[in-house]
């Protein structure tokens, strides 16, 4: 989780990721940033994020992203 927040802060340092609940809907992460985030996650956590999973609901908060990663790790 800390690793994830570190990554997020590297991409856009102006958000408080512990509390923010509308990362996508509030446009804190635009689609290009999400792409960068996906590459970082795939690199650091050794998972594959399929296109289907890229919906606002999975990316709206750090918690949700973390849940997604855990779920994908399980699948592997």
């Amino acid at each position, binding site marked *: 989780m800390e690793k994830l927040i570190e990554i997020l802060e590297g991409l856009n340092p102006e958000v408080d990721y512990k509390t923010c609940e509308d990362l996508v809907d509030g*446009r804190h992460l*635009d*689609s*290009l940033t999400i*792409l*960068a985030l*996906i*590459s*970082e996650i795939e*690199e650091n956590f050794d998972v594959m*994020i*399929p*296109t*289907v999973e*890229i919906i606002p609901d999975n990316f709206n908060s750090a918690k949700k992203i973390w849940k997604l990663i855990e779920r994908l790790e399980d699948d592997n």
Partner: protein
Amino acid sequence: MSYFSLKYLIIFLLTIVVVYIFTPKKLRNLLLLLASYALFIKVSKKLVVFLLLSTLSIYFSALLMNKLDLKRNKEIEKVSKEEKKIIKEKYKSKKRIILILTILFNVAFLFYFKYLNFFKEIINIIFSSDLKILKIIAPMGISFYTLRALSYVIDVYNEKEEAERNIIKIMLYLSFFPIILEGPIASYADVKNEFDKKSSVTYHNFCFGCQRILYGLFKKLVIADRLNQFVKIIFKSYMNYSGSTIFLGAIFYTILLYMEFSGTMDVVNGSAEIFGIKLPENFRQPFFSKNISEFWSRWHITLGLWFKNYIFYPVSLSKPVKKLSTFLRNKVSVRFSSLTMGAIALFAVWTLNGLWHGAGFTYMLFGYYHFILILLGNIFEPLIIKTCDKLKISRNTKIYKFLQIIKTSILVFIGELIFRAKNLTVAFGMLKRIFLNFNITNTNFSIGLDIKDYIVLVFALIIVLVISILKEKNMNVREELSKKHIVIRWIIYYALIIGIIIFGAYGPGYAPVEPIYADF
């Protein structure tokens, strides 16, 4: 056909509403479907065959994919983890064949009706051949319903959406009369529950729907059609006018386009609202955007989402692009790799976005113009942040945000100028005059409009601006209004209706704007 015509509003819509009220719940969707097909056949006649073919193709391929899913799930149950993967792959490739065939089938129609001539034109230019350009009349709304059809099959393929068994709902999804002509490009998830409600026409729904339709009429008749007087002359004979006048024309055209298109959406969503059907919104105060990519998440939202979901992510996460990005990540940097990924996907998105708007070079230029702006925005963003920090400029002040909005608007004006220009020569000619002959003191305001027109325009725009600001502050303007005393409410309605009748730019001497998006 236009949603603003009396034929649609008074004759068609009102009749359907009356019949709907007396239709038993079970048959309501069928009635909407019949009305939708009646409208389609009235406009496109025999071409209804193509709508039916598209509908049947997605209906059956979705069912087929669904069947495969069920079979796969059964087989998977009893086997080991390794075997699971193999089985999954096997079914996936089967499903993929169905998906690809369905996509090709639907895109082929779209290509034939919309792009064959453009394709021939390009071939003629390259090989200086002489392929005949035939006039082809496309089925009504083909660009819109094809995108909706594709989104449904792709979602079913990805198991995001279940295959629908009720064919009436799928037929209605593609042909529903408010959305057939100009969208919104709703996903099936957006509307399936709405269709299930089969709500009655309640007093509340009826009033709210009519309100929204009136607001749309106001935007279109009072603002868009009035501005058209100026715009059509500027774009026809721009050579006679100074750069600043042409720039004013670009501003007016952008406002016109917004009022026309968002006004249409008000009529569309209002029409559906009467039947208790809530459609997704296509606009969210686009002119408050701070950069181009934000603009496109507020303007024609459903189209943007479609491209994001079905082009942007699939392309950027496709195997070859991923391979390239892994390579770049190791050799250069993470940032460079994700930028490259994004650039490739954005290029695909904006090529298709431009072409979707129309088969022509101006539309392609329009697409690439936005591609470059968004890409540059992303490349320079860190640099701008750094510069601001160094100069100790706070990026959170109102002035900074205001300047960002102005900058974005100017970029949008230029984009829409390219969009409206008849061909590339005109587009470049106009841009050249804007940059070389810009002379503020020599701005001609009185083209097709007099001072009194401007007074009406300013008042009308202030009304729209105030409503937009309230909406931007997350206020539900219509709910607030409905809480007001009946006298105040009625005064507002009367003012709106009479304002439209008196100040609307209709009748002899005015040429209304043709439904712009209906041609795409």
